[in-house]
């Protein structure tokens, strides 16, 4: 039996993305955003994207760069406070932003990733900004909001190690939304710090089974300065 090999060159990543698509990117405040894939998207001319991500990163960090360069027309996130460009574009009407409470957003992505239609959540019940016309269901006499699942044309994640079958191991707090996002893409592309041969990862340590992952690319590392590094 041959060995599957999902490793592709980094430059091929953009052939899976076209303008107007919905993409989902793992990460939280830039940590765990896939830096080299974002760099490739920046070099391409894809635009008018719908982006599903925990947040809008920072102006020059992570997915924040795509926002700053106005590649995003619609953003589904829990927070944009760390990227003033997102706030300005929203105010100017150039960027549509849809907010979900952070844990609800994670569960919506997970629901999409595990083949559910949505989740029932009581977070934000009676809060008009969260309810915002959503369907309500009463179960065991408690009200819940119907929060629909999220999926994407392409999911991009970042992992510490990946084997050629696509099994992934994450890195400390860079795990965050990545295992959820990895499940929710029609196509999932993982940028990994270290590509290893299939069989080198212990089955017990694998967080994302390779079946969820379509392609693996070698990371070229972070090419931005973290906010805390600035004096």
């Amino acid at each position, binding site marked *: 039996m041959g060995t599957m090999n999902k490793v592709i060159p980094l430059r091929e990543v953009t052939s899976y993305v076209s303008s107007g698509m919905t993409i989902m990117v793992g990460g*939280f*405040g*830039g*940590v*765990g955003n896939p830096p080299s894939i974002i760099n490739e998207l920046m070099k391409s001319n894809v635009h008018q994207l719908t982006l599903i991500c*925990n*947040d809008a990163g*920072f102006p020059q960090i992570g997915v924040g760069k795509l926002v700053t360069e106005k590649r995003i027309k619609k953003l589904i*996130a*829990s*927070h*944009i*406070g*760390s990227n003033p460009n997102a*706030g300005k574009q*929203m105010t100017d009407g150039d960027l549509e*932003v849809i*907010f979900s*409470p*952070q*844990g*609800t957003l*994670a*569960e919506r992505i*997970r629901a999409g990733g595990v083949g559910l239609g949505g989740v029932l959540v*009581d*977070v*934000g019940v*009676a*809060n*008009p*900004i*969260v309810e915002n016309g959503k369907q309500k269901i009463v179960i065991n006499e408690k009200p819940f909001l119907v929060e629909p699942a999220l999926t994407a044309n392409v999911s991009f994640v970042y992992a510490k190690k990946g084997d050629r079958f696509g099994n992934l191991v*994450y*890195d*400390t*707090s*860079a*795990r*965050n*939304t*990545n*295992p*959820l996002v990895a499940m929710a893409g029609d196509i999932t592309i993982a940028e990994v710090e270290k590509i290893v041969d299939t069989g080198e990862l212990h089955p017990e340590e694998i*967080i994302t089974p390779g079946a969820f992952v379509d392609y693996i690319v070698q990371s070229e590392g*972070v090419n931005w300065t*973290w*906010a*805390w590094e600035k004096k």
Partner: protein
Amino acid sequence: MGLGKEIRNKIAKRAAEEIKPGMIVNLGIGIPTLVADFVGDIPVMFHAENGILGTGPSPKAGEENPLLCNAGGFPITTVSGASYFDSAMAFALIRRGFLDMTILGALEVSEKGDLANWIVPGKRVPGMGGAIELAQKAKKVIILMNHTDKFEKPKIVKQCSLPLTAKTCVDMIITDMAVINVKKDGLELCEVFNPFTIEDVICNTGATLTISEHLNLISRFEGDI
């Protein structure tokens, strides 16, 4: 916001006294983050919504791991017994009620314990992040803030004018002037910090305060941290 470092530290130190051994605690951004510096040796597990239970002190300069950060994006270390997990599990811990306490900042708190800490319509619409889950689901919610806003208007009010994060969720408010408990029948003034008087606190509060029979006038702000 607008408070000197010394006063911020003293508010954080007072909040740290509320943390008891064995608690699981989430600290918000701003003054709440400072609370971790004052808990001393008591065993406590700090939760970060980006997927860590058991965050530790900041690393020394040059020893940071850029991927190991708290929810505010600053590098941290971990303590013995810490664990990493994904965002869904981070919020599972919150939604299921495993957080004994969350310590957050606020724009306004009402006399019923309603919390507004995420939107100033037309000015600041950053998104709620994890604030709604934390406020709605933590067993105890403590608010650390300046007693008044930059126009010296009370931030503790009868009814919040800003969009709410969550209703009737706040249990205690610690400011530069006082410690106030939020009870079912209203606000109870428990501690007043020197150099302020009970009258100062009442004048700068936009809701009715009852005075605790155990009221403490505390010289905490005279310099002895």
